[in-house]
């Protein structure tokens, strides 16, 4: 494998052939915001929060291969505005009420809003959909009001657990994540599945019952550090 270099926001990044822009950036300690991508899962490139300008073209950093000499723009004002718009639209598309959500503080969507300075109400309308809560499973509940259709649970269940508990249904704005059965209790989902682990669902849709407030609000992951600071800590300059 041949090694080469390219730049992100003027910082030289070492990469190897076959790596995506995001993989190389993660190793070099440059954080590119992302929601649908997660370490250990197949890249999907659907949330577009990781959009960067690569030689002037907008591409998803999680799926775009790095190439020698690429000039990548990551945290410019333009890209940050675009990302904030995407995150705001996700907030408006579902029912994301942080004060009542047990994932608050551990939620990557919320943490992304913090990182992108989302403090003002937006001009987008709230769609306020009416979606069901599936509490049929003895150990797991699904509150699809909070689902952002990132598909991380789909890939985790299919590729890691080898089960296929979750899948996409519908098209366009009607595309939703659904379960392979009438409800979750109908499927072979188990609390020990990787797809059900806390790290897979970025929001508060997949709920592990009886664990919700074990860590109090204010002492949670993103109360302590901005999202992406763990990756940025790896930077050695």
């Amino acid at each position, binding site marked *: 494998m041949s090694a080469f270099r390219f730049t992100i926001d003027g910082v030289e990044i070492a990469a190897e052939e076959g790596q995506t822009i995001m993989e190389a950036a993660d190793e070099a300690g440059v954080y590119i915001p992302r929601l649908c991508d997660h370490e250990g899962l197949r890249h999907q490139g659907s949330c577009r929060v990781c959009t960067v300008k690569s030689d002037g073209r907008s591409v998803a950093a999680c799926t775009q291969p790095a190439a020698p000499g690429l000039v990548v723009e990551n945290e410019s004002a333009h890209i940050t505005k675009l990302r904030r718009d995407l995150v705001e639209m996700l907030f408006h598309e579902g029912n994301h009420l942080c*004060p009542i959500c047990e994932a608050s503080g551990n939620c990557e969507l919320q943490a992304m809003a*913090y*990182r992108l300075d989302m403090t003002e109400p937006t001009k987008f309308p709230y769609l306020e959909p009416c979606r069901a809560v599936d509490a049929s499973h003895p150990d797991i509940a699904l509150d699809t009001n909070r689902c952002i259709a990132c598909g991380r649970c789909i890939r985790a269940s299919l590729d890691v657990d080898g089960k296929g508990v979750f899948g996409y249904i519908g098209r366009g704005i009607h595309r939703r994540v659904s379960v392979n059965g009438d409800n979750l209790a109908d499927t072979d989902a188990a609390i020990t599945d990787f797809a059900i682990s806390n790290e897979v669902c970025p929001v508060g849709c997949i709920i592990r019952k009886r664990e919700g407030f074990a860590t109090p609000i204010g002492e949670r992951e993103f109360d302590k550090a901005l999202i992406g600071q763990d990756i940025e800590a790896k930077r050695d300059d």
Partner: protein
Amino acid sequence: MTELRKARVATASLAGCFGCHMAILDMDERLIDLMGKVEIDRSPLTDFKKFTRRCDIGIIEGGCCNEENVHVLRDFRRNCDVLIALGQCAIMGGLPAMRNAIMHSDEPLRECLEEAFIDGRYIRNTTHNIPNDPALPLLLDEVYACSEVVEIDYNIPGCAPTGDVIYDTLIKLLAGKFHGFERDMIRFD
């Protein structure tokens, strides 16, 4: 020469839980410092029900769920130079806005009230009526964020915002030096 005077501040709680007003008290001893810079006009803290004069800063907790909320909010906009939405309910509707998501039928408000006062499984309502006293403000069809009703100048996020972020923002605003929040001060919970 302009005469130096204390800034006049008014506050109100609309469709909120008074948690944000409690959070104002979370400034603790810094309140003493703040009171050297501001005087409080219309507010639940002073129990003034009306503005005694025009105010510099109006602080609003909670969104609008009934017509009285809208009336008060418009009154604040008319009487305050700068209007601040304090907390998630004022900014985006918050907990009361949960009812918006179940409001998709033809007569959502009627269904909501009937379940709350007549049909609900655990209701003990001997009159079998929906409360309809003329003194009760009429509910709105939905819960609205303050910015959907009037122009809002600043938003302090949080549920409730910490005493730190409220103090910091007010002090910076009074000095004319507020340019947004530090990222680690932004919280929605």
